[in-house]
């Protein structure tokens, strides 16, 4: 563990002075500030509408959700990718990896250390952006109820798990990639691909169960193919970190939201949904992200163990 922490410390000392990382940190806080201000304006409009008997009751949690959503879904995943995209490739290029092997550093420590080196500062920035958005929401919109505080706390944990997944994915890609450039490109491409997962999943499910768009249906084979397409579309969503996070995080920040389509409920909800019930409903999302994190880190370890022999030689 000591080795892993030492590697993590070194990684953070390289990462934090990096202008690339700092640029994205600034982007995160710009998103948080702009999102909060935009949420404040929307909240004012909502109050006006609610006074006229239209729209939902204005709530601080809804303003917070609007304020944080852009930072959580766009800026923080990029920050997570930037945190880990060249951890391994840089070491291979500078010969640091050979040095680590020469010191008989365990490969588990290398993977965990590299991961922690990217994850810890990203988690701190994530948590800070949550605090900034919460603070601005409280000051501009109003205080949170205790139920809302629990929801935000649960959302914070989910968000940190989500950024951890992206740090791990970028570490994994860095382990495979030949250079920092290719690693960054591959990581960001994957991020964009999974960010627009609704299009990706529709395209993949159409590919796996092609349905002629001009055909209105009515035959048995068409029905079977359509069923297959729907099933593929449902299951394929579980492979996208942003899709899973959007489901879990969205439900946590919206007590009026029923479980989203690809999460199956055990019983009808009672609105507004209690935070415990929301957590129970979205538990598959938490499990999925935890699995993604674990599988990604183990994959990085296995690849490093396999290819490490080449590097040593």
């Amino acid at each position: 563990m000591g080795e892993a922490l030492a590697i993590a410390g070194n990684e953070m000392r390289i990462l934090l002075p990096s202008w690339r990382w700092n640029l994205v940190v600034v982007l995160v806080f710009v998103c948080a500030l702009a999102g909060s201000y935009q949420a404040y304006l929307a909240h004012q409009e909502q109050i006006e509408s609610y006074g006229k008997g239209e729209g939902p009751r204005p709530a601080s949690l809804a303003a917070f959700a609007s304020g944080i959503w852009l930072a959580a879904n766009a800026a923080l995943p990029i920050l997570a990718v930037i945190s880990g995209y060249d951890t391994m490739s840089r070491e291979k290029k500078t010969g640091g990896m050979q040095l680590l092997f020469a010191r008989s550093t365990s490969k588990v420590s290398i993977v965990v250390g590299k991961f922690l080196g990217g994850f810890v500062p990203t988690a701190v920035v994530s948590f800070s952006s949550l605090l900034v958005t919460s603070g601005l929401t409280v000051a501009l919109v109003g205080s949170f109820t205790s139920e809302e505080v629990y929801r935000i706390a649960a959302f914070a944990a989910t968000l940190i798990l989500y950024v951890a997944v992206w740090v791990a994915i970028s570490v994994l890609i860095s382990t495979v990639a030949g250079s920092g450039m290719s690693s960054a490109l591959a990581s960001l491409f994957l991020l964009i691909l999974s960010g627009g997962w609704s299009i990706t999943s529709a395209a993949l499910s159409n590919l796996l169960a092609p349905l002629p768009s001009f055909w209105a249906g009515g035959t048995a084979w068409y029905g079977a193919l359509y069923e297959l397409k729907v099933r593929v579309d449902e299951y394929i969503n579980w492979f996208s970190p942003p899709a899973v996070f959007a489901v879990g995080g969205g439900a946590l920040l919206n007590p009026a939201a029923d479980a989203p389509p690809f999460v199956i409920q055990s019983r009808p909800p009672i609105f507004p949904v209690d935070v415990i019930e929301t957590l129970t409903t979205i538990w598959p999302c938490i499990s999925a992200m935890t699995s993604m994190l674990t599988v990604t880190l183990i994959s990085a370890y296995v690849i490093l163990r396999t290819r490490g022999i080449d590097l040593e030689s």
Partner: protein
Amino acid sequence: MGTKIFLIILTIAFAALVGFQFNAQRAYGLTGGRATVTGIVTKPGNKIYFRIILNYTVHPGLTSITYDLMTRNLPNGWIARFYKIYEGTGDKQEITSLTIEYLANQGLGPGLDDVELEVEVPETERPGHYPFLFYAVGRESPLSEAVSFKLTVDVEALEREIKLSTEYPDVTVEREGTARFAIVLDNIGETDELANLTAEFPEGWRVTFKGQSGDIFGVYLPKGQSAIIQAEVKPPEGVAAGVYDFIVRAQSSDLVANSTIALKVAVVKAGTAEKMLSTLYPELNIEGAKTIFFPITIRNLGTSSLTYRLSSISAPSGWTVSFRTTPDDRTSSISSIFLVGGESVTLYLEVAPPATVALGTYSFTVRATSEEGASQDLTVAAKMTGSYEIVMDFDALYAQTRAGETASLIATVTNLGASELTNVSLDVSAPSNWEVTEIPTFYDTLGLGEYKTITLMLKAPGDAEIGDYLIGVRATSDRVRSTQILLRINVQSASVSLWIVGIAAIVIAVIMIALVYLKFGRKR
């Protein structure tokens, strides 16, 4: 990696992610939906309809989207169906899904379509509040392109009402004769009824009810149907001349639906009769400028059939006078009537006021003239006592403020009565320690149909608890007050303390970042 390349990649990645995430509905997809009506009150056995509008804002790569339509949490036994209504023809087609084209790229704006949700409430459903959910889930993108919202149905108990009426409630009878009333029993409720018939009458009199099959004491009436019952009233031997009152009652076995009707029988000596023209109510009081009906009885005092001409002799300026067979009859007025010898008939004298009318008593004289030349006048009076009605409305029923700060709302008070109102002000029921200010405090007068505004300023106490407060407000005048409107004021803690909390959170964030940078920000 080169700086320029990095910045380009970063910009593309950020723009792509923003494009995916930042949309009109934020976290909840690009699909919008709303119902023009979200809560409906109905009765068991009815079908109700919600018009639902779905709009599909934009989605890169998808030019159309198909929504599966469904409901959830619908109570047992309820049936929901979706219909597409075609413009122009008005034809309805039952559907289970709906495809919306995204037409912005053709300059036609976002995709928009509407469906009709029909919900059938079982006849056996109990009264209550029934919420359920509407869902539209996009097949192409069920993750983000879905919309759901709550719809509610309030089921009310079925109305139960029966009504007794007769065209001729006042009958003259000779000492030895029998008075006969044709009574109509209407079931104007929403369920079938079995009505029992009873009567209250003076001692010694005999009342019997007759249907088609003989004497009856109960009537079965399907909803919306009516039945005619003959009531026969026979005086006792040696009854004194005079007017006798009777009450006939019809009531359901569970006593929920009931109706009564008052009847009068005037006993006269054989061969004599009362006045040719008479009324039981020569003077009526009314509120406001409303049309009045005086029941008037015309009797043929002779033995031969005669035609009587009816006319208005005097009426105040601007008033119109007509004779009607029933108060509901708006199509024809009566100018003459044919009566068999010894018979009588009750008509209604309708007097309608002009558009503006001052308070006071107005007299009307009418005349009945037989074809033999005999005539009789009758004078009736209407006493206009005035009517007062004030209504109030607010620009908003919900406002937010902070402890120690003031929320302002604008009330509009309108005089909808037939008389001028004086001393118009607001009566505010606020929690203790709240400061209530009205600008202006009151209006001296508010003319007919006039409306004025009052600014209501509600200042929450500095130590007010956070939460929603209900403030009851009525518009009052010397004569009348409006119904109460409840304002919901959301109080948050004092702005200073909220700012302190908010800034504290931001300071903690800055300290966390600073600590990380101080510890790891420099290379060894």
